[in-house]
Structure formats: structure tokens, C-alpha cells
């Protein structure tokens, strides 16, 4: 760790793996340090020494920066730089010690890159530059040692392509050839790769689709491509595809891939002809965008057989081989010979046109659809200049086209309005594209479309809707033609079909139910409509409730109140049964009413006596008699109720 005094207050570099240090930095840095909250620009390199062709991970950390922006990597000319992503380092830690809360808030971001050196030697990695709060911070420069491959001839790598320049949508192949020196006699006929105990490790960036250059499309997925090269006899491991790959679910180590070998002769390190086995990894791509495509570098690490001793034991030698990247340039279609009707489409296409309706009046809208179907740069295809066609311009007003890609076709839709009446044909529209197979421009034409245009109906001035004040200028007219929009509300799909029989049954059921209820309700109606009847029915229950309360009062020693309630219970019972007012009903009247009902004399006398005792108690009578009443009154009231019910009043 060192400082750069010329710039920011805290600039550090670290050269070990970052995950552990960053974690420690974030979690364990003392609060006093964090409390300073000064921006920091840290840089880290995963390795300080690599072989040519290998990549190194480079990380830039902006610490104590609330809203960081990605740093600038200026002067990285010796490296291919690929962004690997970024992650937040924001954290918040709250600790409470002895009731005192301490909060530590950190903010920052880490940016990761893959640096691939373009040459060997001791390379300087310039410091990244970041703008933080208007100040410029520059990180420290680092040094990376890139070791060139050793001069050896045991395994030689080459990357070739069948085309140096391609057009978009033009397929091309990238071939990685590994020439492995043949084994010495007497085992020269044995495959020099399958005899190896450990698989030589091949790093080939385009072997997996995730690391393909932008703007290129493989003809098949990498799994499909590589599965055909699987070998159980050994071979090369590629990008360490193995236990972490979907195609090797149950394998632990890297898988072996071995193309069909080809035996050749080439010059060895001493310049003499030597036998070699060549293995070709060939993958086919299609360029989709203009620009420069870089494939590589490819590296190979492994122990290859250098000699065989007298006992047929192999002597191996560690080999690190590198093949420099292969550049394929994707260029635009040539300007020479480019037709005016060229629409920036490259590939192979067919063209179709439709015009609806086929009969219209002057001024009616027509819809012209051009459909360009095929394989190629469909999205880049521009709408053909229909309005520029002399015949079209003379007879139609053309509005701007809409463009849309659906599946393998691009649709250009134009709105037209015919200007002249007559039986005519919509003229053929020329469209040109660049055919990548023939490497020349190809012109297509739509077929003329029969069209009948009638004279427009003239409408009176008053029929035209004109905005106030604009009658002399352009007026807006309501178009009466054309259908209005579909209904796309899914709720409207609810079944509206009517089953009249069901509804009729429902209404009939209501009628029948009403009649049934009306018939059955007569007694109920009589009951609910006769208040006296309801009072009579409720009388015994009410009397018993009052009697129970009165007895409780007497038992509690409130003899006067209890006696009064007891009398009221009996009087109320008779009043309810007789349909008379209870208030003011005297003992004499009770007795008369009972007599009128032909209640037995003995019972009538007992009731009269009970009421007399109650009246007496009210005016200071014997408490002993009242006490007795609390025991004799309930059976007496029960008898009275039975007697009154027996009379069916």
C-alpha cells in the first residue's frame, strides 16, 4: 500500500485477491477511520504475473462515495478491457454498547474489469480516474508482468478464419488449430494427446456463447457445438468446462474434447520437417453488426511428450502456447453499384405487397403493405421510398410508413389516398438489398396490384365540420369510413347467453313460494296481528319471572318490596289474561275476574288471601306471613296458570 501525494488524500493499491480484503475492509475497519468519510480510490489486481494471452481481473473501488460514477480507464492501450460488472459496497452497521448507539455507514462501489495484455513484457497499468464531488481522483498505476510463451515446438496454436472481411449476415468460420508434435518412434502412430495423463487446458474465448464478441451470432449453441467434440479417450479441456457445466452433471473434473486429428508435416524449432498431429476446433458464426470482431487470444497449457526413453517411458515438458487474436472486419455493403432502391438490407429476402381495399374513391384511405421476408439485417431495413416513385407520386398522396419486424419478416405499412379516379394498377415498387452469398446487390419488385378508384362524392359545405374561425383555412372533417376499434376487455368475454327456461322457472318458483307462504302464514298472521292474543300467550312466563324476582326480594329481607312485587305478579297475570290494564286493578277486581272465569272457589280464595297479605305487608303487616308467601306463592301461581289455560282463554 502506498500513497500518491500528487492527488487525492487517500489512494491505495492492493495486490492480493480482493474478496477477502474488501470484506475485511468493509466489516472490520474501525469506526474512527470510517468517520473521516473521505473518498478513497482503490485499485486491485488479481495477479501480478501472467502468461501472454491470459487475462487478469482488475478492480477499481470507490469508497466513501455516495453516488459514484464509473471511473475512466485512460491509457490502457496495451490491454483489451472488458467490463465484468460492478457491485455496491454500501453497508450500515449499528451497535449498542452500554446503552450508547453507534452507527457506521459506508457507501461505495466496486467496478470489475478483465484486462487482456496485447503484448508481453512488464506492462504498466495506468491509474483510473474518477470524478468525485467536482474533484478529480487518480488511482495508482500498477505493473503487470506478462510472460511470453517459451520457444517450443511441441504444441503450436493458430487461429485462422476463412474470411478477413465479411458483410453483415455473411457466415464465416473461425478455426483454432493445435499442432502437436508426433511421438517419437516406435510409438509415432499413437495420438500424442490421448496418451497424456492430464488434459491440456485450452482457453478459447469463443467456445462459450457468453464470451462471444458483440455483434456475432453462432450457427448453433455452444453446448450443441462442443458436445460433438466430446471424447472419452482424453483430449483437451476447454475453458475448464466440466463439473460446472450442464453437459457434465456427474463428472467432477474437466471434460475432454478431441476433434478428428489430421497428420501433417511442418517445420520444427530447428527448421527441419517434423510430423505433427493437427486438431481443428472450428466454429461458424454470422456477423450481425458492422465493426471489428476479435477472436482470441487462445492459450494452451499442458505437459506434452518430448521424448520416449528405451523403456517406452514418456518424458514430458510443460508447454504454454498462445495464439494471437484473429480480427474479422464486418463492413457495410459496397457503395459502388448501390441502387437507389437499396434499403440497407443485407441478406437474402423476398418481397410481397398488398393493397386494401381494392376499390375506393378518390381521397379514400388505402393501406399498402410491403413485406420483406428472409434472413438478414431485417431490423436495419429502411422503408422503401414509395412516395418517390414517379407513378405513385402522380396518382397518390403517400403518408409516412410504419415499420415493424414480425418473425422473419419486416412489414412496411403506408397510408395512401388516391388523387385520380380510374381503373388502374398500383405500380410495382422496386426494392434492393445486398445478397451476401452472391456479394452483389439484388433488386426485387412487387407485382402491380389492380385497383379501381371511383370519383369521390361531393359534400355540401354545411356538411363539413369546420372549427370556428377556420372555415377559410384547413378544416377537420370527421371520417365516416373505416371500422371502429375492437373490444379487448377480457371481462366482456363473459357469457351473455340467455336461458329463458331457467329464468322462467325462477320467477315461477317465486310465485309458488309466495302462494305457499301466504297460505301457511294465516295462523302466524293472526298471531302477529292480535296484540291481546300475544299478551295472553306471554302472560304466564311474565308472571313467573316477576314471581321469581319477588321471592328473591323476600328471601333477601326486603319483605315489603317483595310482597308488592308478588301481588303485582298475580294481578298482572290476571290482567294480561283478561286483556285489561294492570294499573289500578284491585284485589277485588282480580277476584271478580277469577269468578267470572269460573275458577274454583278454593283457588280463588287462596289468590284473594295472597293478595290481602301482600296488601297488608305494604302497609306494615306480619312479616312471617310474607315469608310464608315466598314458599306458597309459586305453586299457587302454577295452579292459577293451569286453571286459566285449561279454560282456553
Amino acid at each position, binding site marked *: 500500500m502506498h500513497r500518491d501525494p500528487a492527488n487525492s488524500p487517500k489512494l491505495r493499491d492492493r495486490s492480493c485477491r480482493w474478496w477477502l480484503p474488501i470484506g475485511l475492509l468493509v466489516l472490520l475497519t474501525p469506526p474512527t477511520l470510517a468517520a473521516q468519510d473521505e473518498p478513497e480510490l482503490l485499485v486491485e489486481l488479481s495477479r501480478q504475473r501472467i502468461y501472454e494471452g491470459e487475462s487478469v481481473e482488475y478492480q477499481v473501488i470507490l469508497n466513501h462515495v455516495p453516488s459514484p460514477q464509473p471511473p475512466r480507464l485512460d491509457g490502457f492501450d496495451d490491454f483489451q478491457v472488458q467490463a465484468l460488472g460492478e457491485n455496491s459496497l454500501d453497508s450500515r452497521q449499528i451497535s449498542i454498547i452500554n446503552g450508547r448507539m453507534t452507527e457506521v455507514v459506508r457507501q461505495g462501489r466496486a467496478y470489475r474489469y478483465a484486462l487482456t495484455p496485447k503484448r508481453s513484457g512488464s506492462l504498466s497499468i495506468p491509474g483510473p480516474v474518477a470524478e468525485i464531488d467536482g474533484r478529480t481522483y487518480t488511482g495508482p498505476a500498477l505493473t503487470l508482468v506478462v510472460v511470453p510463451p517459451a520457444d517450443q515446438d511441441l504444441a503450436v496454436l493458430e487461429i485462422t478464419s476463412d474470411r478477413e472481411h465479411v458483410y453483415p449476415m455473411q457466415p464465416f468460420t473461425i478455426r483454432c488449430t493445435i499442432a502437436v508434435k508426433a511421438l517419437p518412434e516406435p510409438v509415432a502412430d499413437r495420438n500424442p494427446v490421448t496418451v497424456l495423463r492430464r488434459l491440456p487446458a485450452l482457453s478459447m474465448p469463443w467456445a462459450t456463447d457468453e464470451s462471444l464478441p458483440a455483434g456475432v451470432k453462432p450457427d448453433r449453441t455452444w453446448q450443441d457445438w462442443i458436445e460433438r467434440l466430446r471424447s472419452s479417450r482424453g483430449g483437451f479441456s476447454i475453458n475448464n468446462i466440466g463439473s460446472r457445466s450442464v453437459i457434465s452433471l456427474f463428472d467432477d473434473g474437466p471434460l475432454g474434447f478431441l476433434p478428428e486429428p489430421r497428420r501433417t508435416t511442418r517445420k520444427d524449432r530447428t527448421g527441419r520437417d517434423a510430423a505433427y498431429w493437427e486438431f481443428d476446433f472450428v466454429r461458424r458464426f454470422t456477423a450481425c453488426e458492422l465493426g471489428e470482431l476479435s477472436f482470441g487470444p487462445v492459450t494452451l497449457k499442458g505437459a506434452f511428450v518430448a521424448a520416449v526413453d528405451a523403456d517406452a517411458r514418456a518424458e514430458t515438458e510443460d508447454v504454454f502456447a498462445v495464439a494471437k487474436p484473429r480480427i474479422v472486419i464486418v463492413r457495410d455493403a459496397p457503395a459502388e453499384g448501390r441502387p437507389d432502391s437499396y434499403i440497407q438490407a443485407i441478406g437474402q429476402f423476398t418481397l410481397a405487397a398488398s393493397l386494401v381495399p381494392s376499390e375506393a374513391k378518390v381521397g379514400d384511405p388505402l393501406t399498402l403493405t410491403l413485406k420483406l421476408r428472409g434472413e438478414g439485417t431485417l431490423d436495419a431495413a429502411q422503408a422503401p421510398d414509395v412516395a418517390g416513385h414517379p407513378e405513385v407520386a402522380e396518382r397518390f398522396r403517400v403518408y409516412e410508413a410504419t415499420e415493424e419486424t414480425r418473425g422473419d419478416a419486416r412489414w412496411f405499412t403506408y397510408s395512401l389516398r388516391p388523387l385520380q379516379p380510374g381503373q388502374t394498377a398500383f405500380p410495382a415498387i422496386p426494392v434492393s438489398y445486398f445478397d451476401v452469398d452472391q456479394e452483389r446487390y439484388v433488386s426485387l419488385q412487387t407485382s402491380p396490384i389492380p385497383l379501381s378508384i371511383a370519383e369521390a362524392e361531393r359534400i355540401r359545405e354545411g356538411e363539413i365540420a369546420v372549427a370556428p374561425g377556420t372555415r377559410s383555412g384547413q378544416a377537420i372533417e370527421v371520417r365516416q369510413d373505416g371500422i*371502429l376499434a*375492437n*373490444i379487448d376487455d377480457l371481462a*366482456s368475454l*363473459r*357469457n351473455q347467453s340467455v336461458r329463458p327456461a331457467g329464468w322462467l322457472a325462477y*320467477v315461477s318458483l317465486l310465485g309458488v313460494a309466495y302462494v305457499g307462504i301466504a297460505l301457511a302464514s294465516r295462523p302466524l298472521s293472526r298471531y302477529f296481528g292480535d296484540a291481546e292474543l300475544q299478551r295472553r300467550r306471554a302472560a304466564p312466563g311474565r308472571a313467573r319471572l316477576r314471581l321469581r324476582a319477588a321471592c328473591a326480594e323476600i328471601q333477601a329481607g326486603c319483605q315489603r318490596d317483595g310482597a308488592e312485587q308478588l301481588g303485582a305478579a298475580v294481578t298482572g297475570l290476571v290482567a294480561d289474561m283478561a286483556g285489561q290494564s294492570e294499573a289500578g286493578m284491585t284485589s277485588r277486581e282480580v277476584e271478580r275476574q277469577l269468578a267470572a272465569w269460573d275458577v274454583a272457589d278454593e283457588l280463588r280464595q287462596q289468590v284473594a288471601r295472597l293478595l290481602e297479605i301482600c296488601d297488608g305487608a305494604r302497609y306494615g303487616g306480619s312479616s312471617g306471613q310474607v315469608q310464608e308467601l315466598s314458599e306458597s306463592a309459586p305453586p299457587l301461581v302454577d295452579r292459577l296458570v293451569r286453571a286459566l289455560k285449561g279454560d282456553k282463554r
Partner: protein
Amino acid sequence: MMGSCAVSKTIVRLAVAACLTAVVGCSAAPEGELVRTYQRALEAFDQAAGPEDYLRAAVLYQEILDRGVVSGALLYNQGNAYMRAGQRGRAIACYRRALAYRPRDPQLHANLQLALGAESAIRGPRGLLDYVFFWHDWISYPGKVRAAAALASLAFAFGILALFVPPRRVFRRAAWGTLVLTVIVAGSAAYDWHRFERIQRGVVVRAEVVARKGNADSYDPAFTEPLKEGTELRVVERRGAWLQIQLAGGQTGWVPDAAVTTY
């Protein structure tokens, strides 16, 4: 008194629940497969480039109809698809059927008028009864049936209340009032049932078809001119592959059933 109050509240609640059920309807939500077909049809329409594509959308709508689902929106959309496909006769038939379920939809009226052309009107000349029963075409056929059921439920509830709960006279009058309304709305619904479900109508779907005086090509033409696509008619009788039809003016003739779409 408290008891009668509670009873009347319960009855009113039950009646309101029955009304809501009747008005809102108790049909189940559309199945997922139907919804997918509907969405496919909408997409087919939106992405259609020519008559065949629009016909494809119309066929998808027909798939839903064939499963017994009837919806004004469905028929309206199918009419649009036919219209775009250039099949005016079938479009008119769809729009006409949709009118029973969406009588106040201005877009449906506009599209039907477009399909009929400027010479024809959606409705014939209005008579006195049309003015008296002006509301008749405001409510959809299913709406009328449900409204009739809802009113019947209310009448039933008021009738029950009139049996038990005072003030009985008020409830009795309410019951009679709702009963009268029920009869009116039910009558309107019955008329709709008659015209939409009992009377078979049709529309000419060929560019031209010669109506004949009998059910064979050997008969003389019934009219001085062939019937044009979009001509609306009423089916009187079917004999084999021929339909006896009646035009709006009362003229009758026979046309091959393949030349007419019926509904």
C-alpha cells in the same frame, strides 16, 4: 315490535341479495382456454395484413361461439374481422346479433351503419309503439331478463313483508308496483326472446344471388334484380338446401342456403 323489525330487515336483505344476483348475473368467469383463444383472435386481427388474416381472426372468434359462449363483444369483434376481410354480409349478421347484447354501443351502431351502407338504416321507420316503448332498445336482451327476475324478487319480498310486517299497506302497494314493472319488463324480454331466438333471420353473403320462385334453380327469378350482398331477410321455411325468405318489404322468394348466413 323488535321481532317484526328484524324479520323485515332479513327479508329485505334477502331480496336485495336476490336482486343483485339477478342483475349482475351469476355466470362463471370465462375459462382460460377461451381467454387464450380470444387473445389469439385479437392478436390475429391486430397483426393481420390481408383478408385471409382477418378471416383467421373471425374463425377464432367462431371457435369461442361454437363452445356456447355468446357475448356482444365477441360478435362485435367478429363482425369487425369479417368487415376487414371484405365479407360485408357476414359482418352485418354479426353486428345484428351483437345488438341484442350491446344495444347502446355507439361503436357497434357506427360499424353496422358502415356495413349496411348509407342507403340502409339500422332500424326501420319508427311507429307510435316505438315512441311509447322508447326504452325497449335501451336495455339488452339478457339485461331485460335479469331485470325482470330482479323485479320479481323484489315483488316477492314486498309481498312477504306485506303478509307479516306493518305497515302492510305500504308493502302491499310496493309489491303491486314492482309486480307491474316486472310484467312490463318481462313482456319486453319475451318480445326480445321472440325476435332474437324464435325468428330466424339472415343476410346475403354472396356478391349477388338470384331469388327464385321455388326451391330449385329451374324456377323463375322471384325479383327483377338479384339480391346483393348484405341484403337482410327473414327465413320463413327451409327445404333441403333452399330457404324461403321474406324481405323487409314483404316480398318472398327462395335462395340457396349457402348464399345466406342465418342467425
